[in-house]
């Protein structure tokens, strides 16, 4: 059956948040505009890259898609349901189906709990009734799915390497068998070899599980390796979006061209450093 309706959709999404940098005075904090109307769709089995520099709103957009922020305008749809203003209690029923992988598994895993306990806490969302050997089997299956030796889930996070910890972060996200996963800068702290492993793993999982994967990154090279489509964000707006092949080979906006040119390729290019330098 061909999938026609998107699993996740943002329609003219807007977001304002209190300005934490503003001096504290009387009354409510002034609000800052984080997202100007932003629209995108994400289908099952599709990997969407969201790229931008710090402050572009890429993380806020991702968190709004998961309804960790409540939008101040527009709508978020998940599997055809309007979840724009759902209460957190109502959203809890959907949470097993929408999960997140964090940038730094070191700080997102509880250092005092064994990996199995962290995975188990995530499983409580989706399958609270699962007990005993069946529960253990579900945890080990998640570990195997991310290429982690199931014996390692009895270790503590500090006993694992950075790559293994990031696999645990991914296992925790997929243990509830979600439909939508948001990955926020999940490879930026990793060595290239480990990064390649994690990217290949995400690509395989998205295909095997039919995941809709939103992949946030500041690095267009990483996006190219992994994603089917890409949104380029700047100052709370999507300045360009499209299929990866088209966008990388023929970028339509100056900003995308600047971002692309800013990422050095491992091929010496004598003109690269001076290209795009401000005239002095």
């Amino acid at each position: 059956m061909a999938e026609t309706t998107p699993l996740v959709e943002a329609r003219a999404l807007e977001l304002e948040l209190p300005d934490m940098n503003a001096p504290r005075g009387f009354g409510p904090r002034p609000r800052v505009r984080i997202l100007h109307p932003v629209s995108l769709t994400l289908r099952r089995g599709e990997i969407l890259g969201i790229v931008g520099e710090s402050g572009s709103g890429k993380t806020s957009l991702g968190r709004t898609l998961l309804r960790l922020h409540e939008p101040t305008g527009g709508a978020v749809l998940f599997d055809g349901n309007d979840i724009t203003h759902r209460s957190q209690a109502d959203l809890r029923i959907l949470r097993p189906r929408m999960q997140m992988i964090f940038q730094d598994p070191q700080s997102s895993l509880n250092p005092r709990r064994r990996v199995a306990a962290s995975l188990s806490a995530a499983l409580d969302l989706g399958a609270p009734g699962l007990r005993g050997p069946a529960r253990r089997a579900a945890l080990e299956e998640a570990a195997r799915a991310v290429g982690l030796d199931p014996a390692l889930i009895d270790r503590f996070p500090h006993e694992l390497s950075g790559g293994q910890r990031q696999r645990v972060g991914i296992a925790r996200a997929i243990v509830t068998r979600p439909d939508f996963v948001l990955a926020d800068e999940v490879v930026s702290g990793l060595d290239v070899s480990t990064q390649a492993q994690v990217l290949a793993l995400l690509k395989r999982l998205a295909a095997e599980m039919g995941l809709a994967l939103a992949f946030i990154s500041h690095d267009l090279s990483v996006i190219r390796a992994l994603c089917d489509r890409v949104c380029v964000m700047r100052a709370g707006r999507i300045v360009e979006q499209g299929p990866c092949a088209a966008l990388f080979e023929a970028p339509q906006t100056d900003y995308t061209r600047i971002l692309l040119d800013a990422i050095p390729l491992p091929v010496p290019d004598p003109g690269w450093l001076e290209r795009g330098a401000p005239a002095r």
Partner: protein
Amino acid sequence: MSALLEIDGLSAALKAPPRAPLLRGVSLGVAPGEVHGLVGESGAGKSTIGKAILGILPQAIAVTGGAIRFDGQDLLTLPRARLDRLMGSEIALIPQDPMTALNPARRIGAQLTDGLRLRRGLRGGELRARAVLALEDVQIPDPEAVLRRYPHELSGGMRQRVLIAAAFAMGPRLIIADEPTTALDVTVQKEVLRLIRQMQRRHGTGVIFVTHDLGVVAQICDRMTVLYSGMVVEQGAAAEVLANPAHAYTRALLAASPRHDRPDAGLAPVPPEVIDALRAEVARFGAGRRTGDG
């Protein structure tokens, strides 16, 4: 042209048993005006080399062999007082994280001029003028105002510019740049790389550039050394090593690096047989050392 810096068979290890080796006979040279890239994954020893040159190895690490000759004199045997006089004035550091490297409670001006005040004895108007010049040198607009600011009032890119200004302020002949752009946005990274290249060319400074990014090496380094587990895997002119890598590990690192001009790059990790071969090389090196010493 004789080398400005010559590292000869440098070995280092953890002091605590079992005295795990961190550097295994590393040799490399840096000529004046040359940028030498140190690349490798975490644990390769690239930052350890930088710290050994600067004499700021952590207490837990001991140098177990070799020499670090700067201008012909071995930094490892130099008396502490002479070493201290070199550091900051002849050899300077551009650190990785501009937020933790600056004292949040002191104004930029005070931090920028520490070296000139303490080592050169400059005071008052002269000191101030030199500070303004240093900031102008790194293209910071309105330097007078920036001198009065605190670090948190500046953007990450501006803070990194301040640190570059501080490193170049005393006219050093060698700079250790330890992943100076890792924490920056890509467009800011490019500006900072351009600035470091311009400054080092203008002043003829030799630079050791520590990075894990082969793209950065390709664009800024003249020569490069690939490290694995404290051992030199490959060394040569950066353009040559990147175009015709001789070692399987260098080739694997290149294959593992994603590239925005190629859809299929960046998904192949370093193959296990390459790692196994490297570990065997590391083990052979250890055995060779033991017989050599015995």
